[in-house]
């Protein structure tokens, strides 16, 4: 076997490290048997390396392929064709190649597959941390490539790693240029990405306990950044999600349209009547939201929110929907009207929907509602009276309320009097509807944590909230938050403050705002890390065709094909040229000490009298040759060469010479040159 085709042993180890590095992030996602086989293959290859095992025979290889095919078929039957199964298959082929790689050619295949596997990492996560990890992985893979091309004698793993890291760092400028300028192409065919297993968040059904479940989670729901200083105060941060107007006595749900026709009618109805249905006053608030994947289509916005991004549209109840399920982080722009009135005229079907209650049950509450309504003059007074009832009686705000009986509203209102926001919103809506006031439940988030490092807000799952909107003649839909009556802190300071002493609050998360809130520097660190993640998402992950065109127009005006090409080439050339200068040595790097310079100068002058220094001639033999031909120079030549040798080879300063040593040498040179005929037209320059 030709030695040139063999895999250097260092390269093999680097490759195995690279394989482990690219597989590591997949460990939790892949079926355990794939991980098991992968570990076996790496171990096997290590044993071959150690000389304890041989390469697998033909029979075994065929067996492995058939085995994999069968396993893959069953897996595809179980979980379907998708990225997960494709990634598993790729990983299997990849690790099998590992145990049969013998030559350099094989290792190049493995290395290329390593790169493809890093792509798979990005398909699942694009966070800043993942990117750092991928950077490290790419460095390891490149180290493997370098080790492969170094001769086996050079055993310098540190040098290999350093060179790889240097190459990756030097590649960054060009990468950034290509990333920013290279025209993005629209997907050739649409492929749905798997979601990163994120939280569903607020859903279109609300049963008791649903929001309390979210209250235990410190996962991020979304981040919002306001233009300028227009961010509203905490008590105004009602992130409206869905309107639930259907009640079956247990669950509030969104009225779903039965047909595509209804949906189309909804949209058309809305578009047609927007101006008639909405009255706004005051300055609109513009902001951007980056929503974590939910696998749901709806998105959130403050109050009456009008989407400014293309893929969003609005429904009749002023909810916002994305055109597809949100399986990746998305970023959208919204304009909100903080002061607004909607639906001053309530259409009869909407009124009917907003008054609907189950036939019977909860008689005590219905009675309570009728009596209370009769005792006050207006609907608004009645609503305030109900809020006052919550406030003045012993109602508690808790994540762990006791279970409720069959007549849930009665039980809650007159018996347990302890609940989370959904209990209050649900009860309030019931009491309103029972008194003939059109009411609906709104679910979304309330509050946010402000990140002062990058000036944006972080909204967590525990910010999930439910409140009500009641319809009042002359005012349209009016927001009512019964939770605020029970726990003013919840609205004023946030859920963290209101539930500080509730052990169930965020008990699923170890590190969270509330837990770390007490330790100042840890909290700062957490906020800072999130700020990095936010900026990363906003600027890098969400960099798409639209942003690209926007930035391009900002700098270079209209986008034309020619201009894009020119900008791309010029910037790439600058990047390559700039980095290239750090790679390629253009100047001779031959370093000459002061003493050397003097020595060469003298020998040049000796060359004028026909005593040029021969190539490779040492100082001593040169001296002897000069003295042999010009005995009158003996003293000067001896002194000069003696000083030169002493300075270059015996000096403690390692050839550079101290100041006094150099001065001695200089004067010796001068003495010697004085003895030479004055050949220069302008005389001899000293020193």
């Amino acid at each position: 076997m030709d030695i040139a085709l063999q895999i250097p042993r260092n390269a093999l180890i680097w490759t195995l490290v690279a394989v482990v590095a690219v597989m590591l992030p997949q460990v939790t996602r892949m079926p355990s048997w794939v991980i098991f086989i992968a570990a076996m293959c790496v171990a096997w290859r290590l044993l071959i390396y150690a000389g304890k095992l041989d390469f697998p025979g033909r029979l075994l290889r065929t067996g492995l392929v058939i085995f994999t095919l069968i396993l893959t078929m069953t897996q595809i039957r179980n979980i379907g064709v998708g990225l997960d199964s494709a990634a598993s298959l790729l990983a299997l082929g990849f690790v099998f190649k590992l145990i049969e790689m013998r030559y350099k050619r094989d290792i190049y295949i493995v290395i290329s597959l390593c790169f493809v596997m890093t792509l798979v990492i990005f398909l699942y996560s694009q966070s800043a941390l993942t990117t750092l990890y991928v950077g490290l992985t790419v460095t390891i893979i490149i180290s493997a490539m370098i080790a492969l091309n170094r001769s086996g004698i050079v055993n310098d793993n540190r040098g290999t790693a350093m060179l790889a890291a240097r190459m990756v760092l030097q590649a960054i400028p060009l990468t950034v240029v290509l990333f920013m300028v290279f025209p993005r192409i629209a997907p050739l065919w649409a492929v749905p990405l798997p979601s990163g297993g994120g939280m569903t968040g607020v859903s279109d059904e609300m049963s008791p306990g649903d929001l309390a479940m979210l209250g235990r989670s410190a996962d991020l729901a979304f981040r919002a950044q306001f233009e300028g200083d227009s961010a509203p105060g905490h008590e105004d941060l009602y992130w409206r999600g869905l309107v639930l107007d259907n009640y079956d006595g247990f669950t509030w749900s969104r009225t779903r349209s039965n047909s595509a026709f209804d949906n189309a009618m909804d949209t058309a109805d809305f578009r047609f009547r927007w101006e008639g249905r909405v009255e706004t006053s005051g300055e609109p608030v513009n902001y951007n939201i980056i929503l974590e994947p939910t696998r749901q289509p709806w998105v959130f916005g403050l109050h009456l929110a009008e989407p400014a991004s293309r893929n969003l549209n609005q429904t009749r109840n002023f909810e916002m929907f994305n055109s597809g399920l949100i399986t990746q982080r998305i970023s959208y722009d919204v304009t909100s009207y903080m002061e607004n009135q909607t639906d001053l005229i309530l259409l009869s079907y909407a009124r009917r929907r907003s008054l609907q209650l189950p036939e019977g049950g909860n008689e005590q509450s219905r009675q309570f509602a009728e009596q209370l309504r009769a005792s006050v003059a207006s609907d608004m007074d009645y609503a305030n009276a109900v809020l006052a009832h919550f406030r003045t009686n012993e109602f508690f705000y808790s994540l762990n309320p006791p279970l409720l009986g069959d007549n849930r509203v009665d039980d809650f209102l007159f018996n347990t009097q302890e609940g989370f926001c959904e209990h209050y919103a649900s009860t309030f809506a019931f009491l309103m509807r029972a008194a003939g006031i059109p009411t609906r439940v709104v679910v979304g988030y309330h509050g946010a944590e402000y990140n002062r490092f990058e000036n944006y807000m972080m909204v967590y799952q525990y910010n999930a909230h439910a409140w009500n909107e009641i319809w009042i003649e002359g005012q349209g839909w009016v927001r009512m938050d019964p939770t605020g009556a029970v726990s003013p802190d919840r609205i004023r300071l946030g859920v963290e403050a209101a539930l500080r002493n509730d052990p169930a609050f965020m008990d699923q998360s170890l590190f969270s705002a509330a837990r770390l809130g007490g330790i100042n520097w840890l909290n700062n660190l957490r906020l800072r890390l999130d700020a990095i993640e936010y900026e990363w998402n906003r600027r890098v992950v969400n960099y798409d065709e639209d942003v690209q065109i926007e930035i391009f127009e900002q700098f270079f005006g209209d986008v034309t094909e020619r201009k894009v090409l020119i900008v791309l080439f010029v910037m790439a050339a600058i990047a390559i040229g700039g980095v290239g200068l750090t790679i390629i040595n253009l100047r001779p790097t031959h370093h000459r000490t002061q003493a050397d310079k003097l020595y060469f100068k003298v020998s040049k002058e000796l060359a004028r009298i026909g005593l040029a220094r021969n190539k490779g001639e040492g100082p001593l033999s040169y001296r002897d040759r000069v003295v042999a031909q010009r005995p009158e120079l003996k003293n000067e030549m001896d002194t000069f060469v003696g000083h030169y040798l002493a300075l270059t080879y015996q000096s403690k300063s390692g050839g550079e010479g101290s100041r006094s040593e150099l001065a001695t040498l200089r004067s010796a040179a001068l003495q010697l040159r004085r003895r030479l005929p004055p050949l220069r037209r302008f005389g001899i320059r000293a020193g």
Partner: protein
Amino acid sequence: MLFVLASILIFIAAINYAVSLAFGLAFLMIAVFILSILYAFNNLNQLKLEGLASPPVYCGEAAGFKVLISRMADRRHESLELVFPDGATTHADLVSLDQQEVTVFVPTTRRGEFKAPRLRITTFYPLGLCRAWSVVDLNLQCLVYPKPITFVMNEFNSGSSGNDDAAISKEGSEDFYGLREYVVGDPMRQVAWKNVARGQGMQVKQFVDYVDDRLWLDWDMFYGFSTEERLSRLCYCVLQLSRANKPYGLRIPGITIPPASGVGQRNKILRQLALFEGGA
């Protein structure tokens, strides 16, 4: 090639899944690829090659040309491959030493002064993705001796001692000795044409050399062989005699080297054999 293929694959996946960072990964790979070109170039950049004197070889052997590779201070050159066309590749690294002598082999096909073809120095370092190379003419030369051909040398090993004037003869070219009948294959030059004209039939002049204990390696010792074959046999004789440390001289057309012994004599004679032009 696979590397480029992988980056294209990643690029297509980036388009289809609309994953921003996958674009970044593909672009990073392309950037690394471009940089590897610069690195490969720089691996040869400022490398100094010098041809050194190369020892003579016998024809048919591979001539080993000595090349001195030297680097500037603070530079490293790794995984260099030096090769002549049709020759074997020599690997070299300049990592710890400032200069290094490597031998690059190329097969020889004919005797004489062999001027080396241009040397190609190649490197795939650091990533093996692209090749940097340079073709240099180092003006390398080496002497190719004739290929020695073995034969049994008893003829002139025996009885070579004796008194000076005793004309121990053997067929040679120096002095006329007599005539003999023509045998097919004898050179026309030696036919005694005068006798033919007298009607005495084809006769051939015979010459002899007077041999003393100082051996003469004579062109006509291998009478009937072609020039190259003669030279090859002479070469073998030289090697054998030199090994036996006997004095010997050379007599070939145009060149006469008096007998002597020692390495100097051997090299002198082999050189003449290598450079011999003309012939019978």
